[in-house]
């Protein structure tokens, strides 16, 4: 196993050797925003993503969980090339993301967003939305594109007559199928699913989750699955990374994480997840009511003001995160 530091020095010296089994590799990826700055006002700095290192093998599904504002959506935007990182690097199939042409990148990594209402252009027909990637990349002749669209509608389980409809005429689940068809028509290797079912009703959520699982099987896709719903994550992913205030605080395989989480924040998340079992009541995860200001993260461990286990050193010394690939998973906690 390569350690994190090795990768970093490697990258500084020369382009890393492409490792074919790795679909996606993030090394010390960071993103800072300046917020609140106006014409005459100094901006404050928001560390949205901080030193995130992760690896995804081809065909693997990595779940990314954390509460709103923890930086998981920013991370998705960095991977999709929608934002430039402030530090660190993303390797896609071993190739640095910043060296990949925007259009070439589009063929390798595609998103599925949360809100099926805003993710489709309301002025375009379903056929035009699904065909858009082919149009932009000028792939195939007219008839070829049309037949590819029909094929794609079949794959995602939409009736062919839907092609002529507009997003406004479709239900939430159908819209999400259209978004999936658009993301997959160019057969990308990696799909970033940013809360793909959290805007849907539970009965529809199951349909979309089934579809995502079937497509992963058929097309050999690699998923980065971002969600706040732990039961969905547990059902779908191979490995889980937990994010808090811009950092990965714990990463483990699914079995390890759901059976033996080591970071107090992960433990709190798991305790707060309400499974449909009557009689258990609402558990107390022991978190306080203090919410940290992300532009002024607490010193030491960022979680210490809410942590039930915090001790004096937690407010002074930030716990180290073991390197990527540590056997048995890793957690950034002094007591892990």
């Amino acid at each position, binding site marked *: 196993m390569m350690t994190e530091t090795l990768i970093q020095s490697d990258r500084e010296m020369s382009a890393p050797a492409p490792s074919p089994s790795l679909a996606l590799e993030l090394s010390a990826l960071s993103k800072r925003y300046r917020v*609140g700055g*106006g*014409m*005459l*006002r100094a901006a404050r700095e928001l560390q949205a993503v901080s030193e995130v290192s992760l690896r995804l093998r081809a065909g693997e599904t990595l779940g990314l969980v954390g509460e709103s504002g923890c930086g998981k959506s920013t991370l998705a935007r960095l991977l999709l090339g929608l934002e430039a990182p402030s530090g660190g690097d993303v390797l896609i199939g071993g190739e640095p993301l910043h060296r990949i042409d925007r259009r070439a990148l589009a063929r390798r990594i595609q998103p599925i967003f949360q809100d099926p209402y805003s993710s489709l252009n309301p002025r375009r027909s379903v056929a035009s939305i699904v065909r858009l990637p082919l149009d932009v990349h000028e792939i195939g002749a007219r008839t070829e594109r049309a037949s590819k669209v029909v094929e794609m509608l079949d794959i995602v389980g939409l009736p062919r007559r839907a092609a002529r409809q507009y997003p406004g005429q479709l239900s939430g689940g159908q819209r999400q199928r259209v978004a999936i068809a658009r993301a997959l028509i160019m057969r990308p290797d990696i799909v970033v699913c940013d809360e793909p079912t959290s805007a849907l009703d539970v009965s529809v959520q199951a349909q979309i989750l089934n579809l995502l699982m079937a497509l992963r099987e058929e097309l050999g896709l690699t998923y980065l699955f971002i969600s706040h719903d732990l039961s969905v994550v547990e059902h779908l992913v191979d490995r889980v990374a937990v994010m808090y205030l811009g950092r990965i605080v714990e990463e483990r395989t699914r079995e390890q994480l759901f059976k033996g989480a080591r970071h107090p924040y992960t433990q709190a998340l798991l305790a707060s997840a309400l499974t449909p079992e009557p009689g258990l009541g609402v558990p107390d995860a022991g978190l306080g009511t203090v919410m940290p200001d992300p532009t002024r993260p607490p010193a030491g461990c960022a979680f210490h003001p809410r942590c039930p286990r915090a001790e004096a050193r937690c407010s002074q010394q930030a716990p180290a995160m073991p390197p990527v690939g540590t056997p048995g998973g890793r957690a950034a906690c002094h007591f892990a």
Partner: protein
Amino acid sequence: MGRFIFRRTLVALGVALTVSIISFLLLHLSGDLATAIAGPDATAAEIARIRVQFGLDQPMIVQFYHWFTDVLQLDFGQSYYYQSSVLSLIADRLALLVAVIGQAMPSFWFGLALIILFAVQLQWLPAAGHEGWQSFILPAIALGYYATPAMMRLTRAGMLEVLESDYIRTARAKGLRTPTVIFKHALRNAIIPVVALAAVELGFMLGGSVVIESVFSLQGLGQLAWDSISRNDFPVVQAVVLIIALFYIALTLLSDILNAMLDPRLRVG
């Protein structure tokens, strides 16, 4: 709040500077001023004399510098036509203008219709001039009527939107009586865009007064500008444009500060 007002004032000053540059450039770039002042029948010698007299032979930047430093001392120069100080000319008529700008944008035809109906047919009010307060009623109505529908619409739309909002439902869920819900919770939030529009409309009215004053033969600021335009008396035109712009800027500044008092969320630069 103090910092907000300070920042907002700085921006207003910046806009004022830009407007003064534009009002200067507008007149100096759109044609040869000396020729325009001298009139169509002037000889080349006369034009040259005017050019030197008004400093129009100097580089643009020098001309602007002189004009701008003078403006800072409230010296808008000499009127080409009246041959007197622009400032005193404007000060005389500003009072008259303020009386009329209680309201809005012009409709010269609406003004004429008012004259025909109230001055000629009914003979209730004077048709022209400014003797006594009665003379201002028709011009004020003519100026004001244009803005009224826009304000009413915005107030209505704002009110309807606010009444649909969650916090109104919260207020009603507390059992508050309808007048409390409307006047305490809804109006304060609905009035914010209206305050902003009112400032903009007031600014427009200043500019629009030229037409109404012409219709009612009022010797106001607008009429002064209009006369000066027809006489190619550009320092006056320039100063009127600038003063109206400054009025507008002051009004929007005021409305921003007022809105920040109404809504605490706006109290950031």
